[in-house]
């Protein structure tokens, strides 16, 4: 409504100026009215423009068409009046058309800006989502790594658990030696004439036994506790020998002859000794288990190590057990696949992931009846760059 009031105001101002200037200058009326119509249309829009046209036409008719200040019109002034009205109408129409075009342009520009802002926001949101997703993925990967490490540890503990009887024996044995030798030492010292040579020998054997027990415990503890992998230069033969020492009792109890055929002067590999020990332990325990039903041939577990021409160290664990059937072969390394009554079916997949994390390969070969050979390669430490 106020736009119409402004149009009236413009026209009123034009009217007053025209009346004021009528006396000294004759009839300059229509310029002001034209300006009023243009200004009204330009500023307030088409409707108020029409109002200004109407109002100024009436004002002109009354004040400035002779006879002045009267409604009647002489016939010779009629074309003039209509020309004036027509000019006003055309001005109004042109201005409002122009205005509409500009408004459309402005609206277009505004819309464009809004759309750009919207697009920018969408882009930002997408970007934020991507960043979140990446962080999420990193967190998932970290969690996965933690889980994998923990799973490997649990599997180690499970394996160690299967070895419990052996380990108990392994620790108890040197302790028994300690007690026997310490008692002997005391007995030699308590004789009427103490025999110091015998006493000393017994005491030395006791010390040796205690050291042996503590070594076993250190081995077990490192196998159970450590969770973050650490890479270092590793002598694979030493790991094989240590693992064989851990399982020798288990092998003997199961009537399995353990033999090591280790190549001397093997290059070192870069790896985590505990994880590698876990792999060898898994393979050895599997081999021993696989032979538990074998009665018609010797139960033999052979661990070999050697160097391969292509910068690799090769370790194989061969049993003379029941073998792996052709249909089970592809599933051997699948998680939770097991043919044993006890056992998680995690040993081999974990072993494979450990070996692959070391840049090596783990695979199995079996003729399906007379045993299986598990082999893995590890890149040698000095050739790791190549």
């Amino acid at each position, binding site marked *: 409504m106020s736009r119409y009031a402004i149009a009236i105001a413009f026209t009123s101002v034009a009217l007053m100026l025209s009346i004021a200037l009528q006396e000294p200058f004759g009839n300059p009326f229509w310029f002001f009215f034209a300006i009023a119509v243009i200004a009204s249309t330009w500023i307030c829009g088409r409707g108020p423009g029409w109002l200004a046209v109407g109002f100024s036409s009436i004002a002109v008719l009354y004040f400035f068409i002779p006879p002045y200040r009267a409604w009647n019109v002489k016939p010779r002034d009629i074309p003039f009046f209509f020309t004036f009205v027509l000019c006003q109408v055309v001005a109004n129409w042109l201005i409002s058309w122009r205005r509409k075009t500009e408004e459309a342009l402005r609206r277009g520009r505004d819309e464009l800006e809004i759309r750009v802002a919207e697009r920018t926001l969408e882009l930002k949101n997408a970007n934020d989502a991507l960043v979140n997703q990446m962080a999420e993925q990193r967190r998932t990967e970290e969690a996965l790594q933690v889980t994998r490490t923990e799973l490997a540890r649990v599997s180690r503990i499970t394996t160690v658990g299967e070895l419990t009887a052996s380990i108990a024996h392994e620790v108890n044995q040197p302790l*028994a030696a300690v007690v026997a030798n310490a*008692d002997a030492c005391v*007995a030699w010292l308590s004789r009427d004439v103490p025999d110091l040579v015998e006493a000393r020998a017994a005491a030395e054997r006791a010390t040796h036994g205690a050291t042996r027990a503590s070594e076993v415990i250190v081995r077990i503890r490192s196998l159970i506790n450590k969770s973050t992998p650490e890479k270092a230069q590793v002598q694979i033969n030493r790991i094989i020998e240590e693992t064989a020492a851990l399982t020798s009792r288990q092998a003997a109890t199961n009537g399995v002859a353990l033999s090591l055929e280790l190549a001397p002067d093997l290059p070192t590999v870069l790896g985590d000794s505990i994880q590698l020990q876990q792999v060898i332990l898994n393979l050895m325990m599997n081999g021993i288990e696989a032979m538990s039903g074998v009665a018609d041939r010797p139960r033999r577990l052979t661990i070999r190590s050697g160097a391969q021409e292509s910068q690799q160290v090769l370790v194989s664990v061969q049993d003379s057990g029941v073998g792996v059937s052709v249909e089970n072969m592809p599933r051997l390394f699948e998680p939770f696949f097991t043919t044993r009554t006890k056992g998680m079916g995690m040993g081999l997949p974990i072993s494979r992931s450990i070996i692959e994390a070391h840049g090596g390969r783990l695979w199995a070969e079996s003729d399906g009846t007379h045993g299986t050979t598990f082999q893995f390669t590890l890149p040698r430490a000095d050739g790791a760059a190549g």
Partner: protein
Amino acid sequence: MKEAEAIVFVIDDDRAIRDGIASLIRSIGLRVETFGSARHFMSAERPDAPACLILDVRMPGIGGLELQRQLSGAGIHIPIIFITGHGDIPMTVQAMKEGALEFLTKPVRGQDLLEAVQKAIERDRTLRKERAELAAIRARFDSLTPRETEVLHLVVAGLLNKQIADELGTSELTVKTHRAHVMEKTEAESLAHLVRMSERLKNSLRK
């Protein structure tokens, strides 16, 4: 004849334990021989002397219980002291049934082991003496003629000379002579002694 010096055999696959036990037993002045496996022990020559065996139950190859069976199958009666990491009850019962003397768990207290060893050797000494006596009695009884053996059985059964003569269809005088030979050859001091010896032989055969 002075009895041979007692000897203790130690069979354990763990050298440190073997040496410790051997040292402990030597410290009280007994002879010791050690073996790393049952096989070595079986193939070794064993002196004829009171002895006992300290045996690890769990060994690679022939285990302790298996060796016990083989020994008793071969008629070798050495008191056995078993040493085990963790003796379960069925295993202990089986070993005891087969005549094991002691079942000690590792680590064994020296005092327990020495007491068991002394008990075992004492028992072997007694058993050896009994076996020797029995062997002597059997030898004396084996020296009787078939006729004298017949008379012996009837005498021991509690028959009088006259009844024996009727049984065998011979004279009372002949029976008396046979009977005197029997008493002399078996070194019986009295009829009661003769009966006791005869019972001992019978019991040992029944076993």
